[in-house]
């Protein structure tokens, strides 16, 4: 008797919650990068003027959804490539708005070296090319005077799945090592010349932690949360930079072009960490499509405006790097160029 009663209650509760859910339909829908997801969830839970639903399905998925016009905005860790741009109606049709920046750090498992490893970009690329094979080879030793490096083979670990993290990492290696540029290049899943692939950050982290002599790369936030050691990387100015949130922000404090589609890896900033990148929200420049209302368009642009200003205060607690001053300025200009029926929204 009691059981049936509580069962009935549960059914009623379920039904009403379903009704409630359908009644409060989301105002805005977004999809894309999983890297930015924890930050977006925090931001959107704090943002009151509109309800936002963000699905972390990966950058490629987000771009596909925006191309199909099923979401209001996408988010990608890499700017659109030529083919994607053409599919969405040419370079003028889509706006890139930087949301935050993230760093990719090089993690390692070298017995006897607990932390403080230093690497230059060129040597890092040579390690990933399989040219530098042992930890005590002269290339690694030169960057680490006084460190007792063991005679251990380097086990290269990379992501096996297509990922924005791999794109940022290979984008950097392409810039600093001509051999890498011709043999491999930059891609979310390139043809890795050496090593093992781990699925996802957890796959890479698992392999690095277990394999003595391993080297891998993960996002800064992931390394901090999982207490993994990470190397200082030599930047363009010749300084070894410890990856921090501040150093990541500094990396993007350079002259940003008007469309913000810039790669900030191997930054010119003397104190900037060299393996960093923006993640971009993507929206159509002309917001009057598919019968969208002006109200919807305004809500969307105002949300992104809030993201690059007030929203930035949530970055540091979640180990994301807030946008640099020059990036915010460039993003403001881009948002102001959004139109509804040919007229500026903001």
């Amino acid at each position, binding site marked *: 008797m009691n059981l049936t009663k509580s069962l009935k209650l549960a059914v009623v509760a379920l039904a009403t919650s379903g009704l409630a859910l359908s009644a409060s339909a989301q105002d805005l829908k977004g999809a894309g990068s999983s890297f930015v997801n924890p930050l977006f969830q925090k931001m959107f839970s704090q943002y009151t003027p509109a309800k936002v639903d963000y699905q972390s*399905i*990966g*950058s*490629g*998925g987000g*771009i596909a959804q925006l191309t199909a016009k099923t979401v209001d905005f996408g988010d990608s860790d890499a700017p659109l*490539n030529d*083919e*994607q741009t053409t599919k969405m109606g040419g370079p003028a049709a889509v706006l890139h708005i930087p949301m935050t920046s993230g760093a990719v750090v090089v993690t390692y498992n070298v017995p006897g070296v607990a932390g403080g490893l230093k690497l230059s970009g060129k040597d890092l690329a040579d390690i990933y090319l399989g040219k530098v094979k042992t930890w005590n080879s002269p290339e690694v030793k030169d960057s680490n005077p006084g460190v007792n490096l063991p005679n251990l*083979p380097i*086990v290269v670990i990379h992501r*096996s*799945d*297509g*990922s*924005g993290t791999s794109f940022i990492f290979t984008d950097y290696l392409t810039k600093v090592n001509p051999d890498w540029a011709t043999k*491999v*290049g*930059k*891609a*979310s*899943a*390139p*043809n*890795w*010349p*050496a*090593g*093992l*692939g*781990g*699925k996802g950050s957890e*796959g890479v982290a*698992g*392999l690095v932690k*277990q*394999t003595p002599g391993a080297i891998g790369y993960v996002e800064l936030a992931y390394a901090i949360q999982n207490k993994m050691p990470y190397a200082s990387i030599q930047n363009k100015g010749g300084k070894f930079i410890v990856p921090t949130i501040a150093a990541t922000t500094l990396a993007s404090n350079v002259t940003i072009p008007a469309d913000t589609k810039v790669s900030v890896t191997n930054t010119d900033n003397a104190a900037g960490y060299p393996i960093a990148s923006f993640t971009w929200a993507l929206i159509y420049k002309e917001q009057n499509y598919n019968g969208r209302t002006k109200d919807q368009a305004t809500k969307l642009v105002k949300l992104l405006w809030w993201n690059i200003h007030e929203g930035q205060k949530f970055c540091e607690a979640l180990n994301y790097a807030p946008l640099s001053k020059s990036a915010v300025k460039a993003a403001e200009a881009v948002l102001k160029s959004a139109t509804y029926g040919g007229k500026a929204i903001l």
Partner: protein
Amino acid sequence: MITSPVFTWAGNCFVNKPPNFVENKRLELSNGQLKWETMFKLLLKVMSVLLVLIIVGVLITLIIESWPSITSQGIKYIWGKVWDPVQNIYGAYPFLVGTLLTSFTALIISIPFSYAIAIYLGEYNPKGWLSDLLKNTIELIAAVPSIIYGFWGLFVLVPLVRTLEMKLDILPYGVGVFTASIVLAVMIIPYGASLGITLIRMVPSPLKEGAYALGATRWEVIRNVIMPYTRSGLFAGVLLSLGRALGETMAVTMLIGNTTAVADTFKNVFFGPGNTMASVIANEFAEADHTLYLSALIELGLVLFVVTVIINMIGKRIITRVTKS
């Protein structure tokens, strides 16, 4: 007045027909019965045709979607050894080899186990709580999600394999074809085993009793009565588990090392890292950012489809040959 019943011969028995009975032209069925019979038959037909249509549809979709890759890469796609999305060069050879190697290695490891389980639970211990417990446990193996196997392999099996590799003087990666095959073997055991248990229990008792009466031992009964009687069925179970192994994705991708490089030595072929077709598709599909790349991945699906069909056809051929002899 009582009408006396008329008994008539209805093919195989006498039926009691009332005098006002209207003769049905087809059999002795009422119209309602007949309607259900036809409808049910139609339903079965529609279902089976639908299934065929779905498979043909999948094949057509795969061909259409992979057309850009088929035209640009040509037939050398099959034996090309380079998979480079940046340069737009695609070759399926490393993944084809990886898929076949892991599946067949897993099959060879799993066969003794699934046969032993089938014989034990089918013949030696077919009833009782221990038998039920074991049978349920084996079925549970099939119910565990493959990502759980992946994590188990990564954190338990990989360190063990690494220790073994150090003793054998191989680069101690831990992950690789061998590790993936072991986990695959565990995953496919229930498919062969549970079909085997059912089949062995279905062997007619008179056959076995006859053999026992002639003084055969248990081993002799299994070898000379049960095995010949269930051979083709047991092989069908093996085929079923092979199909499962060919398509398994998540656990394999977590353990195989995901490298496109083709191994150079025999040791490296088995212990070194590799990759499979299903694993590459799962890894790269979501972020494949240009048409040709996406198309090449779909063509990989087409190759996997064709490989599965070929292996199944060979299996069917073997089954018929075994049954005839």
